[in-house]
């Protein structure tokens, strides 16, 4: 760090390195945008799924659950819940909350309409069919 290696050399390496790796990242992103359509299940991105995503977001589901492993770690992974539980169980479960069991973690009742429940289930079905490189390791999420 002394002698011949000066601050302006360090600065130039910083700018050069940053620009190079930012451009590499953009190139990889560009390639990802070409490849993602083969994996993202967008063929099933129906209006019901879009509406379901909004139900998911406006009730802050991510505040307790994970979706493809991202979110909060308080409640089960839901990226594959459609495969684990099936549509009818999901709807009945949401409607029966909170359980009120003493000392147990409680999920609020979000007073979703039948339409919203169906949309949410469609969103979870669509999510479960995205190609996630075989994640999670098993059905428990």
């Amino acid at each position: 760090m002394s002698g011949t290696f000066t601050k302006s050399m360090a600065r130039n390496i910083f700018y050069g390195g940053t620009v190079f790796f930012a451009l590499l990242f953009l190139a990889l992103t560009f390639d990802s945008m070409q490849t993602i359509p083969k994996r993202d299940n967008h063929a099933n991105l129906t209006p019901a799924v879009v509406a379901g995503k909004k139900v998911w977001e406006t009730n802050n589901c991510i505040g307790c659950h994970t979706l493809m492993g991202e979110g909060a770690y308080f409640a089960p992974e839901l990226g594959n819940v459609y495969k684990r539980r099936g549509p009818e169980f999901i709807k009945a479960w949401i409607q029966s909350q909170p359980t009120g069991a003493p000392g147990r973690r409680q999920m609020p009742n979000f007073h979703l309409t039948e339409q919203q429940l169906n949309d949410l289930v469609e969103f979870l079905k669509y999510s479960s069919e995205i190609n996630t490189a075989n994640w999670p390791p098993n059905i428990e999420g």
Partner: protein
Amino acid sequence: MQYSSQSVAKPYFIAAIGLFLGQVLFGLIMGLQYVIGDFLFPAIPFNVARMVHTNLLIVWLLFGFMGAAYYMIPEETETELYSPKLAIAMFWVFLVAGAATILGYLLVPYATLAHLTGNDILETMGREFLEQPLITKVGIVVVALVFLFNLTMTMLKGRKTSISLVLMMGLWGLAVFFLFSFYNPSNLVLDKYFWWWVVHLWVEGVWELILGSLLAFVLIKVTGVDREVIEKWLYVIITLTLVTGIIGTGHHYFWIGTPEYWQWWGSVFSALEPIPFFAMTVFAFNMVNRRRREHPNKAATLWALGTGVMSFLGAGVWGFLHTLAPVNYYTHGTQITAAHGHMAFYGAYAMVVLTIISYAMPILRGRAANSERSQVLEMWAFWLMTVAMVFITLFLTAAGILQVWLQRYSSTPIPFMAAQDQISIFYWLREGTGVMFLIGLLLYIVSFFVGGNEKAKAA
């Protein structure tokens, strides 16, 4: 204080500490809900508490960064702030907007809040860390732009040092990448892909420029080491940061529907991400060892050294622990992630803000350093909070390892909630150390009121 306009930093620092206390209190509520599931239900459901906990973290760090910038830029550029009035006005706008948002989370059902605040016009809410209502997000952009305008104008009329340049790059980057929070495509894969352009490119990108420049500034002041040497180190560290961290974004692109080559790019580059943090630790210790003066503010020096060590442990070591794709396959979205998140945010960002506050606040209050008694108390607070965070991290790591085994790795995987029941002992231990952290924080706050204005020697 060399420039009177530096004093605008003071309310920013006070607000930061106040919101930090709020963050920790909500953390304790959530920690208890992990083991007593119906605690405060339905008044404060877990998702609301978590939103408050993480949003308060972001907001208090932003207050800290802004206060730091208002303090540092006049001194670095050797000129008064362009507009102190604007800085004070933005303080109140940001504080009121922040408080209103937190009250909104606590008092109104989230779906109603979304409806009332224009989420139907542009749907941006309900994504982790970006839960803020649209009007709050717009408010953040306005405050950030006015803040950046004020500082950029100051810089244009003054001396341009490397530290101030790096700080401004970090702050501009922060504002620019936040714009991705307005992009929320229906396609979940794209949503997640660009969500990380806010979250990752903040905390493992531009925020590290801010971190580096804050640390470099304080080290120049407390050690008296030549600026040329410190700024050279700063450039080396941030080069390592961005060279590893930008492509390192790929460690979030393993399992979200993105191409599988990211498992290689993400693993290799993020495995290198500890290097800049290690360099930062070496840097901090090196500079303090080569110090040319004995600065009376020993507490600030301790915080600076602590930032180096704890960011290396939290962001570097605990990040590396689960960043390789074959490991992450099992640990993704478990308590391992939570363990890393806690120590990394505390070690890197909370501690660097506390470092600059520790250095600047006595000067803002008209003395080079606090009294001996006050500093001893502050150092007690340092150790209590830091040791508590080490144990919080260790207990969450233990919980995470067991969770991975029970739920994902063993030959007979059990359901999520069944696994949670098995590991509750570690959540209890974490809650205990959380209380220790709170005691440390309360002592820290008390240290501001422990008197004496002796020791008002040269700054």
